[in-house]
């Protein structure tokens, strides 16, 4: 294992210290319990947005704390959900009297820990609503599984719900828009290599030189299927099919197309993927109205990418376009 780290146990805490030093204009950090909070929080009368989850997905979630997006991010150890204590503390820190929305990726650990924190916050009189993000179409049937995972679509939920909170929507309305974004978002990911979790010291899985994983998550879990490497265009075609079938997206739809890097794939490849995805969508009469390309929801140094399609309407487009000022996503100010 080769990494620019000190002790594997300190990876997340030291990285958060780095975030604090690099982005002190945007965020403040609580070191114990560990969470990142928007500078100036709580904002009186504004719904507070808290998200979090295991580390190793940076810039998710810490890079999205700031104006128009999250009020706090709670990082757990690498790939491990945080415990209720820091989630509770972050919830308290961002409560401006209008309640707090928890945005939780659908993993058993995240759901249970946020649930406990929400219960504890509720017991202290803070109104908490929870939106579970589960945009990953690779996981088929929630009757027989832990349900679809929350993956790259989480960024879109955080951005759009953040804009709704920023314009003054109440807790119900913010939760409603977050739920809607999640309902209209579908993602599929693939991996060319596995990540190496620092404390594990070895890659999470092994792939031959000509193999890729289809339907991968963001925690080094193997995907549902392993296939031979194909040209990028063929892989993109394979990825788009289950996404477009699932909602289903139809000719005339306007969408946001998001090509997300898993951390170790160069931007040049992400743009090649984007190009093909946009081509296929155009052929189907689907209009790419907004775009996002880059490493936003990663899995350490894993090579791979995911494609996310969000069906837009006027409200979602307006909220997407609204100003945002965070370390990893910024426009309009």
């Amino acid at each position, binding site marked *: 294992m080769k990494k620019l780290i000190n002790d594997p146990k300190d990876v997340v805490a030291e990285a958060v210290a780095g975030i604090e030093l690099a982005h002190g204009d945007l965020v403040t950090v609580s070191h114990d319990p560990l969470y990142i909070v928007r500078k100036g929080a709580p904002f009186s009368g504004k719904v507070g947005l808290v998200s979090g989850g295991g580390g190793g997905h940076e810039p998710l979630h810490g890079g999205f704390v700031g104006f128009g997006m999250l009020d706090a991010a709670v990082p757990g*150890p690498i790939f*491990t959900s945080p415990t209720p204590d820091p989630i509770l503390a972050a919830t308290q820190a961002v409560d401006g009297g209008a309640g707090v929305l928890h945005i939780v990726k659908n993993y058993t650990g995240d759901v249970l820990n946020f649930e406990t924190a929400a219960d504890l916050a509720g017991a202290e009189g803070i109104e908490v609503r929870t939106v579970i993000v589960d945009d990953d179409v690779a*996981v088929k049937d929630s009757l027989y599984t832990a349900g679809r995972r929350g993956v790259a679509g989480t960024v879109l939920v955080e951005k759009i719900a953040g804009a709704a909170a920023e314009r003054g929507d109440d807790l119900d309305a913010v939760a409603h828009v977050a739920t809607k974004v999640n309902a209209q978002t579908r993602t599929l990911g693939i991996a060319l290599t596995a990540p190496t979790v620092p404390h594990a010291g070895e890659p*999470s899985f092994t792939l031959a030189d000509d193999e890729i994983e289809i339907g991968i998550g963001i925690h080094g*879990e193997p995907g549902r299927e392993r296939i031979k490497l194909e040209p990028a265009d063929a892989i993109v075609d394979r990825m788009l099919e289950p996404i477009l079938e699932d909602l289903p997206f139809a000719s005339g739809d306007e969408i946001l197309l998001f090509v997300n890097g898993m951390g170790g794939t160069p931007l040049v490849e992400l743009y090649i993927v984007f190009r093909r995805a946009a081509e296929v969508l155009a052929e189907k009469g689907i209009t790419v109205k907004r775009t996002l390309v880059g490493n936003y929801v990663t899995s350490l140094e894993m090579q791979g990418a995911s494609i996310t399609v969000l069906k837009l309407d006027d409200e979602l487009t307006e909220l997407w376009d609204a100003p945002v000022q965070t370390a990893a996503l910024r426009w309009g100010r």
Partner: protein
Amino acid sequence: MSLGITWVTDWIRQSARVISEHRVELITLDREIGDGDHGENLDRGFTAVLGKLDDLPPDSVPGDALKLVATTLISTVGGASGPLLGTAYLKAAGAVGKEPELNGAAIVALLTAARDGVVLRGKAEVGDKTMIDAWTPAVDAAAAALADGKNEVEILQAAADAAEKGAESTEPIVARKGRASYLGERAIGHRDPGSQSSALLIRAAADTAAADDSSAGEGSSADDGSAS
């Protein structure tokens, strides 16, 4: 015999020891069908528990120690196993209440409450390839041993044997809860890490009870003469 605070704290220390010894094995199991952190998670949790155990007041009863484990695991483990095992210990603590000494029935109640706690949070059934596949056979075997008139050590040994068989039984099946469920058929042939760690914890209970019992038999540490 019955089992008191000494046994519980011995059990906890032994749990920390076996989890640390099996840390890499549990990480490896979790790497294969999960995300590779299970051994790290529990090791972090039980290391924290060890650190707090010395602060336990001398007049503590078993329920106090179990509650300490519960709150410490909940606030240090994270992931799925933190809330699940945390709740198990919390409910176990509730089941034994302020009782200073646990007889066979209390031991069965403890195990049952622990299992029920996991089910309450995680909604898993036997056969879903989770830690429940270790806990439920353990509870059943313990209850059967109690009904058969076995003593506390024998009850825990029956539970540990059943938990180990239960962990083994997760190998040939697909998962319906936890991360392994994302894998479909590809999870077949791999043991569920949580069932393995739960089997280790229950075995630690049996081993320390047996040691407690034999040292009690030697009269070296037990001041309670009621050993069977």
